């Protein structure tokens, strides 16, 4: 039987294999050494404290440190312990790393990976620990991937490290302990290639990260009533597989974008406008977006849940499209 790993173990294996394959790979972050069960387990023991560097709680400085290391022949990985911490380092991410390659006129590449752990609302973590801030990075031009399976977690981690540009990998909180089949050998999952996670022919649901499995559950539920839903996972949000997106919409003619980021200027807004521009004549019904509400994620369970894109709302949207 094929080997199964948790998402977090898959990330860990990708890191070990990347460190072993390339001596220029280094990693910076908080509490990444001496840990037993996290994505960085065993790295410092295997590769040393000069390559696996525990940092003070100084996100701007260690993000800039990585930029400098990348300009000097390194291939750094920066870990953000919590997704909202990218805001602390925003100048170094947006003004510096994202802008440098163009401003340098191509003098150097900037192979940096931002590993953003525990992204999304995990239940009762409140406003500063529940964000899914990928639209901010995408808006700034930082390549962004959200693996939805352990297999892709490993393959995209390796791909991100090998890519000669800054790449942000969001590891959703809700997926870290889930298990799935993961090949043992090193492999890179290509950026810019979406995947049909469940085939169907009446409605396309675009979902990524933690929402993929929820979309599949909804698809199975409505299948009992003869509704055929295709679940399309972009995998890589920037670059986005626009051809793959157009293909599934052309096939089904109906689109629901199910996205766990804010509504205004969020990922769903971008997908909707692309489809409206490119696939207007394929559409049999208006596009629907099921997203987070544009509010700070509230703490208490009922209101937290009400602010997030859930299965019930997706199911209602899907049924309404065919009613």
């Amino acid at each position: 039987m094929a080997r199964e790993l948790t998402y977090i173990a898959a990330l860990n294996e990708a890191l070990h294999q990347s460190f072993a394959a390339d001596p220029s790979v280094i990693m910076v972050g908080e509490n990444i050494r001496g840990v037993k069960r996290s994505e960085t387990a065993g790295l410092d023991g295997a590769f040393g404290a000069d390559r696996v560097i525990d940092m003070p709680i100084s996100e701007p400085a260690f993000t800039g440190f990585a930029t400098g290391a990348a300009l000097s022949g390194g291939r750094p990985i920066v870990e953000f312990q919590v997704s909202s911490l990218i805001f602390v380092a925003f100048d170094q991410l947006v003004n510096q790393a994202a802008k440098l390659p163009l401003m340098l006129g191509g003098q150097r590449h900037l192979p940096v990976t931002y590993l953003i752990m525990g992204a999304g609302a995990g239940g009762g973590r409140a406003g500063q620990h529940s964000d899914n801030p990928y639209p901010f990075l995408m808006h700034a031009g930082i390549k962004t991937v959200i693996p939805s399976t352990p297999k892709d977690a490993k393959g995209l981690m390796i791909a991100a490290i090998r890519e000669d540009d800054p790449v942000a990998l969001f590891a959703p909180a809700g997926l870290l302990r889930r298990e799935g089949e993961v090949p043992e050998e090193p492999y890179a999952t290509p950026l810019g290639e979406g995947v049909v996670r469940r085939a169907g022919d009446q409605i396309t649901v675009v979902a990524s990260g933690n929402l993929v499995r929820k979309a599949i559950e909804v698809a199975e539920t409505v299948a009992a009533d003869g509704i055929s839903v295709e679940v399309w996972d972009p995998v890589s949000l920037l670059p986005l597989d626009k051809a793959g997106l157009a293909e599934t919409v052309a096939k089904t003619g109906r689109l629901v974008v199910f996205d766990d980021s804010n509504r205004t200027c969020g990922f769903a807004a971008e997908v909707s406008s692309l489809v409206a521009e490119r696939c207007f004549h394929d559409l049999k019904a208006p596009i629907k977006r099921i997203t987070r509400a544009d509010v700070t994620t509230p703490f208490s369970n009922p209101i937290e849940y009400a602010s997030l894109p859930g299965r019930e709302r997706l199911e209602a949207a899907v049924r309404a499209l065919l009613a």
Partner: protein
Amino acid sequence: MPPSTTPDLPDAETQIGWYQRMRLLRRFEQNAVELVDEGDIIGIVHEYVGEEAIAVGACAALTEHDVITSTHRGHGHILAKGGDPARMYAELLGRETGYNKGRGGSMHIADLDLGIFGANGIVGAGAPMGLGAAHMFKLRGEPHVAVPFFGDGAMNQGVLLESFNLAVIMELPVIFVCENNGYAITTPIGEMTRGELFERAAAFGLAAEAVDGMDVRAVYRAAAAAVARARAGGGPSFLECRAYRYSLHNVAKGVPREDDRPAAEQADWRGRDAIERLAGELTEEGLWPDGARAEIDDEVDAEIEGAIGFARNSRRPDPDSVLDHMYAVTYPGLPAAGWE
């Protein structure tokens, strides 16, 4: 903790080279202002005039393998590290032959092959990149160092203070060079900071001292000692170089040029001019022959003239190249621009 040994000054020829470089820095800026006024340079330029001894003195202690990070007032650092005035002017004029192919302009000129990580439009932001470079040197067992330059105003930027701490705990070969010119635009440093800047740095555990930034020899000595210590694994230092900018914070075409700083203060600093000081010392000590100065000045002017000519004769980027260099690896539709 000041450096324990004071390095000797190099030979006369090298010091004459410092004079030449300082003169080049000054004439580069004076001509840049003219190019702004004539409309050749679009945008703003921050002149380095008055502070030449800092960049030239500090970079005199470096090789082309060492890395510097720079500031919005960056032309001087780049020239001092060996930058080519022709490619710099070409960048200022937005030409394809510029260092950054016209994608950066005054505040982003860089030459990665010379270890110049670039000027930077964000105060304090270059410093941590110097640390990353320093760590890679250490990791590869190379004896090189990194020198972040920054102003007094940057001393209140969190990322810089974080970088002081990081350099100390990682024992990185880094020499922080603070250019204390007394002001952040209009604000005197004394209004925004209490205590001496170098003492703040010392509190982080950096070997820190204040240096006369109007004396290229003093800057060189302090920098050379700090660089030698860093190369030998002795860790990071901090030099507060005290100087003055003669000109306004920046210039742009059509913006009135009024300097509200006290006239006596301006006159006092101009009276301590670093270029005149070194010229006087070279003459007094008989280190250059009569007429050498005029000859160098003429050579510098000729070089500047040639550099500007090169820039003016270079072509501007083709509009079709607007998407170039955003990524090393592009994909269909990335970067996005139109319908695709």
